[in-house]
């Protein structure tokens, strides 16, 4: 049985529709990340699952029960907020106690749960402190602890790491992943950070303008993006996109030509406008006499340690190549590159849909 099911879920504010018919199945124990740029409807979707926003249309089920009209408290969910949402005048212990209060548990059980949770999260020493006396990372752990003590069926995370600095973000991200492995609770997690999504998720839901663009494992959305949006959103630096045309069995663009990979051979037709996508790591430095080698001018070189990013001008196209640092060239140099044809993605230019599917 699915833990959470969204069936054509819609959100409207007055006449403005912000979430357009989201379909989603989340299995028991799955870690699902809603990923997308600001304003794509991911947080609104999460808040609908939490019950903080009404569902304007469609059906939302948690644990097999339709919860469209069920109060937030009766949905068996706990939520961790971006700004921690801790009660500022209460100590860490009181914050957790207050979350347990509606459950009317015996005092011994309350103490046991708080003790266990504090132990897991490394908060045991901090139970008597107030939020103002804690660091950002500690506050976020308290927020998680407050959600955990209730042992909910589903955890909802709303951009929990976005207020933390880069180093802490990595650490807390790791802690969240570990916690999920340990508790095995279903998680629905919202973020705009693809690294969080790629590292934590069993399944990524990529959203844009209130629509789901693609649902898949991190490998799927990286390796097989269904749309140009997903292709450019996932992966850093972004995939290079080249407007091309099918001409005499080849992909042709200004100053650039490549054979059509075999898997696309029967999916394109002569004269079709296509978008060729190639990840920066799949642009290889070549010698001038290699077949398929293209001349490129280096405009900017960014040295990153192990590798370097080269901003290249190929014909009228600006491409980024990620090459081993020892192969890097200097700005102004003319070099040769070739596309790793096996790694080419093709999209229909008009619809933006992948031609691989």
């Amino acid at each position, binding site marked *: 049985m699915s833990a959470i099911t969204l069936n054509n879920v819609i959100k409207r504010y007055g006449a403005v529709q912000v979430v357009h018919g989201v379909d989603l199945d989340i299995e028991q124990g799955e870690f699902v990340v809603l990923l997308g740029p600001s304003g794509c409807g991911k947080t609104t979707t999460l808040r609908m699952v*939490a*019950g*903080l926003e009404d569902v304007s249309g469609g059906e939302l089920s948690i644990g097999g029960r339709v919860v469209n009209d069920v*109060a*937030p*408290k*009766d*949905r068996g*969910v*706990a*939520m961790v*907020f*971006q*700004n*921690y*949402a*801790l*009660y*500022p*005048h209460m100590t860490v212990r009181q914050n957790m106690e*207050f*979350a347990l*209060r*509606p*459950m009317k548990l015996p005092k011994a059980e309350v103490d046991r749960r708080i003790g266990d949770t504090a132990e897991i999260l490394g908060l045991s020493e901090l139970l008597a402190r107030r939020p103002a006396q804690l660091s950002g990372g500690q506050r976020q752990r308290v927020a998680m602890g*407050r959600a955990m003590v*209730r042992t909910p069926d589903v955890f909802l995370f709303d951009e929990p790491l976005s207020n933390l600095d880069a180093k802490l973000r990595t650490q807390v991200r790791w802690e969240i992943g570990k916690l999920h492995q340990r508790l095995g609770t279903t998680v629905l997690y919202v973020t705009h950070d693809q690294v969080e999504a790629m590292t934590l998720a069993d399944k990524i839901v990529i959203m844009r303008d209130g629509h789901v663009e693609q649902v898949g494992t991190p490998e799927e959305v990286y390796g097989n993006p269904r749309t140009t949006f997903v292709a450019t959103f996932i992966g850093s630096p972004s995939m290079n996109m080249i407007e091309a045309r099918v001409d005499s069995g080849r992909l042709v663009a200004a100053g650039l030509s490549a054979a059509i990979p075999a898997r696309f051979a029967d999916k394109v037709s002569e004269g079709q406008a296509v978008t060729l996508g190639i990840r920066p790591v799949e642009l290889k430095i070549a010698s001038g006499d290699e077949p398929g080698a293209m001349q490129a001018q280096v405009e900017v070189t960014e040295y990153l340690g192990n590798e370097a990013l080269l901003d290249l001008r190929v014909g009228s196209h600006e491409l980024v190549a990620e090459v081993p640092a020892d192969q890097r060239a200097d700005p102004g140099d003319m070099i040769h590159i070739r596309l790793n044809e096996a790694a080419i993605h093709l999209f229909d230019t008009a619809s933006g849909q992948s031609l691989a599917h």
Partner: protein
Amino acid sequence: MAYIRKRNRRIFLIFLLPAMLVLFLTTIYPMIYAGYLSFRSYDLAKLFVPRVFVGWSNYAEVIGSSEFIHSLITTFKLMAMTLSVQLVLGVGIALIVTQKLPGMPLARTLLMIPMMISPVIVGLVWLFLYFPELGYLNYFLSFLGIESIPWITSTNWALWAIAIADIWQWTPFVMMGTAAALQSLSPEPYEAAMIDGNSRWDVFTRVTLPQLKPVLVSLMFLRAIDAFKIYDIIFVLTKGGPGDSTEVLSMFIYRQSFTFWRMGVGAAASFVSLVIIVVLITLFFKSLQREQHA
């Protein structure tokens, strides 16, 4: 640099001077003069009789007088009546007008009107309402089958009549401060409580009230100082009567000074009430500090 600093200081002084002058003439000088008077025998009716130094005898008379003690008790009684109702009503109304409902911003503005009216006018308005034979209040009460109430002519009701007028005028002040504090509270803890299933009562008493406490304490403190000085409304409505049932401290001082023309005793009484206010303020800030350190 030094030159500019010196010139700036002179400009500061020039700009400050008018305000300081007004402050001196209307507050500091009268206070010093009242201090001087409080040690003298000074009959306003005998302007040309020398003001003899009488030591602490004015103070002794004030503190020993049952009228003064009575007025002090009446002041605290009135304070308790008005502050408690203003607190409950002010917080209650603030909770309503901060809801995201149509018409609430307008309601908030309208509710502030009483506060903007001069207390003398408020007194006159309520005088019309309370008037024994012709007052509107008894007229409307008669529709409910309630017999006319001797609002300002009975010793049982007069203090309540004054309290009601003061509550009407100053509840908006408490409402406004509380509403501002409510709106500055972060909404996320409330959403967390909603998901966790905490009852509205729990959320109000354990999340909202503790966070409002510093603001409420300050509002009550400001109201307490005002209540200590309440004068205009009483002067218009009852002039301290009937009998001495509404004679608060300020009325006592006024009566001593300008009815009995005993300026020395009036000045001494003013200083005694000043000391009481200063003691209250000190205790208040001490307790606030203790709380912040706790």
